[in-house]
């Protein structure tokens, strides 16, 4: 794809992103979110991180079937164990990379 269409896409996606990200802060202004929503708000990072991890580990193929990226799963599992043992973040990430690359090299 070349030409004007491409720039229309970039402009529209930029605009959509600005509106989506700005809506909450613009509508709320300096008000706080309702107190009864706060118990949900504190759990939002938990839900968001889990969702992002999940979609990173699965691929939906053209046939509609879900495939699991087993190499990445092994890497994330290695990082999880390291993190639970209170290993430093950078070491945990390095273990994930080594584990994933090793599985990919072996498969």
């Amino acid at each position, binding site marked *: 794809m070349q030409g004007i*269409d491409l720039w229309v896409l970039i402009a529209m996606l930029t605009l*959509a992103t600005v509106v989506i*990200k*700005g809506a909450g802060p613009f509508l709320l202004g300096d008000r706080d979110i309702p107190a009864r929503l706060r118990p*949900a*708000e504190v759990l*939002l990072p938990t839900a*968001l991180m*889990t969702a992002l991890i999940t979609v990173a580990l699965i691929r*939906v193929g053209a046939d509609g079937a879900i495939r699991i990226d087993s190499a990445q799963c092994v890497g994330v599992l290695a990082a999880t164990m390291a993190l639970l043992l209170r290993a430093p973040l950078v070491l945990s990430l390095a273990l994930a990379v080594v584990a994933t690359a090793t599985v990919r090299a072996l498969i």
Partner: protein
Amino acid sequence: MPRTFHPGVIKALPLVLPTVALGGAFGVVATPLMGPVAPIVMSCLVFAGSAQFAAFGVLTAGGGVMAATIAGALTNLRFLITGFAIAPSLKGGRIQRAVEGQTVVDPSFALAGRGDGAFDRGVLLWSTLVQYVSWVVGTLAGVILAGANPDPEAYGLDVIMPAFFTALLVAELRIHRGLGALVAALAAACAAVSALVLAPGAPVAVASLACLVGLSRRTGP
């Protein structure tokens, strides 16, 4: 700020390499279809990896501009929810808050969280700045390397992003324990099931709503 870096910068450093690699991957795959300039402009303006990949995926599948925009916007829909969550932690009037709200990206949102629903505005802004530079520099490198066809996945670099999110999740679960584990299990199930039926990107927004389980908890007066 004498000779020290803001905590937000330090916290974002582990993500520099994977973000550069991801931006590079976007530059490499996008250049043959979009030319050398458009991917860089897109990364500068849209600054949302998953949305850019989603829009690009529609284009490569032969979809039109409208379909590509919708795919990208759906992928960013989670930022509608995070926007409301982070709004009270920003500063200024409506316009300034809406502008500051543009800096929310997944890692900075989680890094800035204090665990009690409040967010550290400085950590948000500084960690996003590191992300932004990494993303744009990565895209630029990808465009330059597009002919050489490098493969970051062979080195396992693609796992750093989910592994980093795992680290943030583990930190959250240490705070929220049982209810957190329930929300995580529900979010994972929602994301996996809705990935089967919804357009790419939408499952993350749907699964984010698993946090509503928290409403069942009795709160103080």
